[in-house]
């Protein structure tokens, strides 16, 4: 299959994925090209697949430039950077990496909750700076038993709910439709969910409908003691509004793994001790990234060997 061209639109930073792709295909690394348009033009007739990730996918413009494109295999579960309707229209297959990263992302959501409520990062800074010698750190606030509201009860949302239940947290959720057989309390709007929980977690897919689903009104409803946890996508939250809500004390705290313009994070957040900021590491463990890479490669192999795709979305 060496003659099959695969265009990697994301930075080629994960050696295992790059190696496995290069073993099987001719890999074109778009991010390394000095002139991307020229690069695409030069290789467009051999490119039959695109590999992207959470940050870089395949938009309509790119798809139009690749006449031989048959499949987009995303190194992520979120597909907001892939033009799905365009792919459907052109009968291009699309795969992602569900399930293998569910536990890691859910773990991180709980980790962020604990880190924000119990001020773990700030406590660590307090010790390292020598401040402990001058006096005890102040009281934080209990996590166990706090009510958790989850936006989106898919695989990741459910995994977060199961974990939070172990901490005796009452669970409620918002989704487009109420889910039968789910014991958690449903709210038909995000504002009502936010008004009725202490910790609000974003765990839904990013689509046109969910863009800025956490807006000023939602943050005000969550309130000065409420904490927002975002392990979805940056654009789920109106970021400038988030910054002012935190600075003005209208929102109690935030644990954020994603931002509207990664890797740029609003600098006013850096001075706040009631936020924890992570560089999009939700699925960033050695084990999971390998499993994700195996799915990406496995899907491509299946496609070119005319076998059923492992994790198709389109």
């Amino acid at each position, binding site marked *: 299959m060496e003659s099959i061209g695969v265009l990697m639109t994301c*930075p080629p*930073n994960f050696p295992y994925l790059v190696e496995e792709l290069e073993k099987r295909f001719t890999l074109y690394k778009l991010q390394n090209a000095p002139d991307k348009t020229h690069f695409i033009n030069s290789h467009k007739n051999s490119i039959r697949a695109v590999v992207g990730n959470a940050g870089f996918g395949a938009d309509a413009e790119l798809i139009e430039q690749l006449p031989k494109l048959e499949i987009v295999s995303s190194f992520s579960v979120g597909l907001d950077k892939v033009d799905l309707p365009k792919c459907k229209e052109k009968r291009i297959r699309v795969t992602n990496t569900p399930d293998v990263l569910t*536990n*890691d992302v859910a*773990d*991180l959501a*709980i*980790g*962020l909750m*604990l*880190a924000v409520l*119990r001020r*773990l*990062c700030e*406590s*660590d*800074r*307090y*010790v*390292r700076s020598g401040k*402990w*010698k001058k006096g*005890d*750190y*102040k*009281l*934080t*606030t*209990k*996590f*166990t*038993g706090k009510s958790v509201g989850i936006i989106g009860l898919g695989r990741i949302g459910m995994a977060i709910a199961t974990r939070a239940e172990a*901490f*005796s947290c009452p669970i409620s959720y918002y989704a487009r439709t109420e889910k039968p057989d789910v014991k958690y309390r449903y709210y038909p709007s995000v504002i009502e969910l936010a008004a009725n929980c202490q910790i609000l977690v974003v765990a839904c897919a990013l689509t046109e409908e969910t863009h800025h689903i956490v807006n000023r009104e939602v943050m005000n409803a969550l309130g000065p003691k409420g904490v927002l946890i975002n392990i979805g996508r940056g654009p789920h939250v109106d970021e400038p509004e988030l910054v002012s809500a935190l600075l003005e004390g209208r929102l109690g705290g935030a644990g954020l793994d994603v931002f509207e313009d*990664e*890797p*740029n*994070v609003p600098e006013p957040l*850096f001075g706040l001790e009631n936020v*924890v*900021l*992570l*560089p*999009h*590491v939700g699925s*960033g*463990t*050695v*084990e*999971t*990234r390998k499993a994700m890479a195996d799915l990406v490669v496995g899907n491509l192999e299946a496609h070119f060997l005319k076998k059923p795709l492992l994790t198709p979305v389109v």
Partner: protein
Amino acid sequence: MENKDHNQNHQSEDLPQVLLLKPTPVMAVLGEHQFSSNKYQFLKAWESPLPLCQFLTKYANSIQAILCSGAASVTDDLLQLLPSVRLVVAASAGTNHIDLMACCRRGISVTNAGNVFSDDGADAAVGLLFDILRKISAADRYVRQGLWVKKGDYALGSKKKTFVSYPFYSNICELAADSDALIICCALTDQTRHMINKEVLSALGKEGVIVNIGRGAIIDEKELVRCLVEGEIAGAGLDVFEKEPDIPKQLLELENVVLSPHNAVFTPESFLALSELVVGNLEAFFSNLPLLSPVMDE
């Protein structure tokens, strides 16, 4: 020293005295009014101009109970000076600062924090574990220092395998050898002092991590630091240290440790619950009712 406490302003000769050698964190945060009762009054040793020995001798006959935290040890020598003491109330889960054998010999009951710290202590232990394994504090530093922009994506953390049952190990080395993460939450006693030693850390291994929300002295701290610096274990989450608040300098430089200033149970919810338990124990004692959270001999 001006005494603003209304209990001592209207000092009643009849109310039994509860001795406080040093202020306790929970009282310092919540205020003395949270602990007041019409069944007893507090006697604060540090407010007296008298040297401690004289102070204790003066009030020996009226001190029937002692309220203490880790800062003030209750030793056999102290109890010798206070023959009327029948109850020691620890404002903590730990009782390693109390000579339990001496209390037992003298027929003195001891109470501790019972269950009020369990949730927060457990949350903190899990929080430290998450932080160590998923590098939460380190990654947060990375972002705040502008390195996500300058250097790119953060290096990967690791997820460990999960157990669903709780097998018992009678040998701590075997437990360490079979675990990815070792969490210390036992009491500090003569048996557990430096229980986590070179052998145990070696069994835990290069991929293993340790979390301590018990007492610093349960771990041989020098050995722990050496193992961390030399990569013989993967990381540590520590809320307690052998000589608080002095932390070994090498720990402050390490990226694979998370440090917290002995605040695993420092939440308003826990402190309020503790104050209620302390008052409850004292009132029960002075009303000849069963204690709420007696420390049982094991």
